[in-house]
């Protein structure tokens, strides 16, 4: 079976090889190769025969540059994915596509790749929900997964970090319920519900099963928020009973962050409520090289949105061609694996690893002087079509 797949793939790829060598021509004759996954994508929206449609949100800051890098790599590898781009931004509301259009597109295509959306610290309209939150709530993208993994030849204090952080992202502190009850007194509501806590706990355990992980750690602050976080913790404990072969432990969030920076290798899969997840995500990303190298994804029952793990727009680098596209490329590779295009996914991942391991082409955040474009081209040249 694997032989058949490999041979089919090989012949197709050989046909397209001359294209990848002359890659800047950008007119890639992808139509020739449509038949690699001719029947794989039914429930996914297919445009031409065997090609997959994917919603694309470049986002703010360096997002468009990173997305361009992904598109270049996809073209060079002749990957049968067509993008449906939407400009979607909170800081530029006049140009932004309406929320309904974007939501409709993602619901139709089931998959999306997304840059980071900038979120201002103040609200002109008095509305408390950010665009990100609206998108998540509309699609019910309740689970955010960030896989923090040490990459080869990326200098960091810890080695062999490999943990998965799963975060509930539709309730908790992000419920956008704040009010000033008396002048000078602001109350912010943190909502925890049993249904959503059970759902995220089940997601975490199922993800652990799928990834063959051994341990799930629930991060909480139930010693202070005895009712809210207590409910979350109890839901996790309840769910853990259904997974007798996965170890379950709980850790208070402050201790967790300390453990994370001193001994991150003890963690496997972590499940957290909304805000703690955000903090732990960013902290863990910092351990392995920063926002530019960590991929993440958000899942609902039907859709998957792939985005960077640590959400920074990096607006200081806009137009300077210095942002690191590694995270976005890893996202795209994860997306391909999600839609069963495993060989393409591996091809991209191997290319990234090879470029990083060689260490000749590094962007500024990893201590080099190369540009975003240099890195992208290095990845394209490392694509091994013969796998």
């Amino acid at each position, binding site marked *: 079976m694997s032989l058949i797949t490999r041979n089919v793939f090989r012949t197709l790829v050989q046909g397209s090889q001359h294209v990848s060598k002359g890659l800047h021509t950008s007119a890639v004759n992808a139509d020739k190769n449509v038949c690699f996954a001719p*029947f794989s994508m039914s*429930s996914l929206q297919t445009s031409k025969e065997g090609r997959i449609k994917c919603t694309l949100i470049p986002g703010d800051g360096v997002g468009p540059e990173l997305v361009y890098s992904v598109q270049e790599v996809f073209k060079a590898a002749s990957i049968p994915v067509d993008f449906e781009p939407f400009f979607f931004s909170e800081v530029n509301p006049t140009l932004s596509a309406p929320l309904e259009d974007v939501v409709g597109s993602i619901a139709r295509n089931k998959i999306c790749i997304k840059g980071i959306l900038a979120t201002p610290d103040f609200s002109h309209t008095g509305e408390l929900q950010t665009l990100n939150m609206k998108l998540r*709530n509309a699609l019910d993208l309740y689970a955010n997964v960030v896989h923090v993994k040490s990459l080869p030849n990326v200098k960091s204090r810890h080695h062999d970090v490999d943990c998965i952080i799963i975060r509930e992202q539709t309730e908790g502190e992000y419920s956008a319920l704040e009010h000033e009850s008396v002048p000078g007194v602001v109350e912010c509501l943190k909502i925890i519900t049993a249904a959503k806590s059970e759902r995220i706990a*089940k997601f975490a355990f*199922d993800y652990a099963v799928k990834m063959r992980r051994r341990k799930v750690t629930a991060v909480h602050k139930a010693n202070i928020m005895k009712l809210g976080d207590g409910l979350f913790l109890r839901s996790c404990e309840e769910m853990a009973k259904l997974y*007798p*072969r996965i170890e379950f432990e709980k850790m208070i969030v402050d201790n967790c962050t300390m453990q994370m920076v001193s001994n991150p290798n003890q963690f496997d899969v972590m499940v957290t409520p909304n805000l703690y997840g955000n903090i732990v995500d960013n902290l863990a990303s910092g351990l392995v090289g920063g926002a530019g190298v960590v991929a993440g994804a958000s*899942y609902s029952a039907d859709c998957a949105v792939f985005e960077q793990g640590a959400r920074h727009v990096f607006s200081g680098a806009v137009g300077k061609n210095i942002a690191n596209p590694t995270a976005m490329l890893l996202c795209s590779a994860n997306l391909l694996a*999600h839609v069963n295009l495993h060989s393409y996914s591996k091809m991209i991942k191997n290319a990234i690893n090879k470029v990083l391991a060689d260490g000749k082409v590094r962007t500024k955040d990893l201590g080099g002087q190369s540009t975003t474009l240099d890195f992208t081209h290095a990845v394209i040249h490392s694509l091994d079509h013969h796998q």
Partner: protein
Amino acid sequence: MAVRLLSKIKLLPELRGAAYLSAAAAPAELSDFEVQHKTPVIRKQKLIPVAQYGGRHAVTMLPGGGIGPECMGYVRDIFKYIGAPVDFELVDIDANVDNDDDVQYAITTIKRNGVGIKGNIETKSEAAYVTSRNVALRNELDMYAYVLNCKSYPGVTTRHKDIDIVIIRQNTEGEYAMLEHESVRGVIESMKVVTASNSERVARFAFEFAKRNGRKKVTTVHKANIMKLSDGLFLETSRRMAQEYPEIEHNDMIIDNCCMQLVAKPHQFDVMLMTNLYGSIVSNVVCGLLGGAGLLSGRNYGDHYAVFEPGTRNTGTAIAGKNIANPIAMINASVDMLEHLGHHFHAGLIRRAVEKTINVDRVLTPDVGGTASSTEVVNSILGNIGRR
């Protein structure tokens, strides 16, 4: 419990809103899987969130003994080839151990995934306290209805052509109650338990099934002339249910006569409804008529769970590892599973390829009169996928 559930739903308007929104954006038609998990029914068990993430389903896979593991291998090959959005969670059950740990774990995984596909699990232990694993699985998950879709393949030579029967069998009680005792030395009593509630559930299932699939007739099979109370209750219940479905014809037949009619004039049957042991016998009779154990697939349904398996529940230990086992039954079971989950496109791809392999190309294993090996059949199916 139901009241608590309803109040929970009321408390979560944003949850409902989100569900409606995504439902509105997605195709409106609900799969059987979604019907099981989204419709508000009175639940006996605690609600466990559904294992569906980003459009992919998690499914428990129990290869079982005998030819199970190799057949599951073929299913995985085919799923990989067509890219079916299903992630299997493999659970092996050791047939030789005397404890129920593995089985309990398997049951737990089905509970959290909602759906399973299984081969036949062997129970080698003779100890009285070790119950049959297959029965334990069905009882624990409360899968009260078993459906066997018996449709002839024109490519398989049999005595009768164009048979199309659906057998629906009560799956959790009756003779399989596993209650036996020796009241006096040398006298053993085995209890057959028939309850009104279970009879009603399976009867309703049968008539609903007939209605939804455009079937015309339901035949209740029984032995109420001898077991006037137990089988009488089953028969009475199905007669009562039939009155609620006036558009579907209902008749009944005694099991011994039924078997004779089946081998003589099988075309008179449409949907058949029966208790546990009769179901076991009749499904084997019909499978025999259609070409043996290797073709048909069966489905176990409960209120919350569904498990798919080869139709006749034979382990096939004798032919394991010889590359001659017929993989069609397990592949059909996987097609049923895809349909249940709502992946009709992928299910159709495999079904059409299987039909082409059997009826047009006639690549068959020895048990149905061919000469091909298992792998040749699978390769033929793979080659036929997507081809008209």
